[in-house]
C-alpha cells in the first residue's frame, strides 16, 4: 500500500483491538487503505513525514485518524495536541477512542480540537458496529479536507 494513499491511520497499541477493528473494516471493504501505528511516536512520524516515513507527503493526509487514548511512549492526547497544533495537519479528522469515558479526558480532547470522541464498547458486536459506523461516517458521509487520499471519481454512468 502506498503510504500516500492511506484512508485511515489506526493508532492503537492493543493487538486485540487492532484485530477486531481490522476485521470490522474488512467487512465494509474499508480495510485496504488502513495503516496501523503501534504507538504515538510512530503515528507522529507518519503524519509529519519524518523518520521512516520521510517519503510521505503532507499533500496526501489520511482521511481519518483513529487514535487510542492510552498508549506507551507518546499517548493519545499528546498526539492529538501535535496534530491539531500544526497548520499542516490541523485539518485531518481525528477520532479519539477511549476505554474509560472519563470526563476530563473528553474535556481535554474537545479543548484541543478533536473531531470526535468515542468509547470502545466492551461487547464484541457493539465494537464491530461502532467501527463500521466510524468507517461509514468518516469516510463516506463526511467530506474530508481536500487533498486527502487518491482522487475519487464522480460515479456517473452514462
Amino acid at each position, binding site marked *: 500500500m502506498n503510504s500516500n494513499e492511506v484512508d485511515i491511520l489506526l493508532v492503537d497499541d492493543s493487538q486485540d483491538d487492532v484485530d477486531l477493528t481490522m476485521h470490522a473494516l474488512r467487512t465494509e471493504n474499508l480495510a485496504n487503505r488502513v495503516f496501523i501505528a503501534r504507538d504515538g511516536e510512530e503515528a507522529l512520524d507518519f503524519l509529519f513525514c519524518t523518520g521512516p516515513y520521510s517519503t510521505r507527503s503532507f499533500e496526501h493526509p489520511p482521511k481519518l485518524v483513529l487514535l487510542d487514548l492510552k498508549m506507551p511512549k507518546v499517548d493519545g492526547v499528546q498526539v492529538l495536541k501535535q496534530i491539531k497544533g500544526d497548520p499542516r495537519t490541523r485539518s485531518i479528522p481525528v477520532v479519539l477512542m477511549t476505554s474509560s469515558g472519563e470526563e476530563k479526558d473528553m474535556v481535554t480532547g474537545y479543548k484541543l480540537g478533536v473531531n470526535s470522541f468515542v468509547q470502545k464498547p466492551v461487547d464484541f458486536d457493539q465494537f464491530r458496529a461502532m467501527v463500521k459506523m466510524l468507517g461509514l461516517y468518516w469516510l463516506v458521509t463526511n467530506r474530508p479536507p481536500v487533498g486527502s487520499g487518491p*482522487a475519487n*471519481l*464522480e*460515479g*456517473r*454512468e*452514462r
Partner: protein
Amino acid sequence: MTSAGTELAIPAAAAPRPQLRALLVEDNPLDAALVVRALIKDGFDVTADVVQDEAAFTKALRHGCPEVVLADYNLPTWKGMETLDVIRREGLDIPMILVSGALGDVNAVECIKQGATDYVLKDSLARLPAVIRRALQEKLERSLRHQTERDLARKVDELARSNADLEQFAYVASHDLQEPLRMVTAYTQLLAERYRGKLDENADKFIGYASEGAQRMQVLIRDLLLFSRMGRTEARERVECDAVIKEVLQTLRSAIEQSGAVVTHSALPAVWANPTQMAQVFQNLIGNAIKFRQEEPPVISVQAEEAGQQWLFSVRDNGIGIAPEYAQQIFVVFQRLHARTEYPGNGVGLAICKKIIERNGGKIWMESQAGAGSTFKFTLPKSDTEESTRIRS
C-alpha cells in the same frame, strides 16, 4: 464667382491627374524645383512643401499629411536619413525616398536597409515618378494587410470571449438552478410518499408526473454542469491508462456484475492528459457498452495501438450497435437514439468524451452496424515523455 443661375463653362476634362502631397527635404531651391517638375511632367498633380531642418520637417509632417518624403542625403544642418527617426517617432508610415547626388552603391544599400524606401540620383530624376508609384502601391498593400490582421485578431478575441461567456453562463445557470430544483424534487417526492392514496384519484398521477419531471431536470442540469465544467480543469499530467482502467472497472463493478459483463484490455500506454477526464472517457464508453447490450452478456475489449505520432484507443462491444447514419449525431449533447423508457440516460456521456478528447488534441469516432456491436475509437497525441514507455500488447 458666378451670378446666380449661370454655370461656369467647364472645358471637357482630361483624365483627372493623380494628386500627390510631397514633403521635400532640400536646401537647394533649384533642386527642389527640378524634382517637382519631374513629377508634374509624369502626370502628378503635386502639392509640395519644402523644409530644411528637423523642426520644420516635424511641423510639416503633422500638418501637411504628406504621402511621400523626398529627402536629400546631405543638408547643411541635418541628415536626410534622420527623417526616418522623426517619421517613426510620429508613429507614421510614410515612404521616404532619398533624392541625392552620388552615394555609392554600398551606401545606398545601407540606407535602404535602415529604412529608406528607395534612392534616386538627382541626375536620373526621370526614374522618380515610377519609384514613387511603386512605394505608394506597396504602402497600400501593407495597410490592407495590417487591417486584415487586426480584424482577424479582433474576431479571434471576440470568439474567445464569447466562448468563455457561454461556458460561464452554462456553469452559472446549471449551478444556480440546482438549488431551487432541489427543493422542488425533494418536496414533490415527499408529497408522493406522504399522500399516496389519500387525495383524489388524479392527485397521485399528477404528483407522479411532477416528481418525475423534477428528477429528470435535476439529472439534466447536473449533466449540463458536468459538460460545461469540462475544460475548466486543464491540469495535465502523465496518466497511466492501465491504472485508470482498473479504477473505472472498480467504479462500474456493480453494473458489470449485474450484466455479467466481461471486460478485457490490452496493456495501455501512458498519455499526457487530465486523469479525472481520462477516467470519465473510459467510464462513459465502457458504461455505454454495458448499458446498450443485447440479450447475451456484454463482451467488451479495450485496446491501444500506436498510430504514428498518436495512440489509437478502441473500445469494442457486442451490443445493439448503432446505424452508421447516426455516427455523428450521437456525439451531440443531449442527443439520444432511444426513448427514455428503453434505455436510461440523457445523452451527454459521448458529448463529454468528445469534448475531452478534442481538447487534448485527439479525435473520437464510432464504427458500427445496427445489431452488430460497436467500436468506439479515439486518438491522443503521444507526448515526448512517453517515448521511453512504448507498450506493446
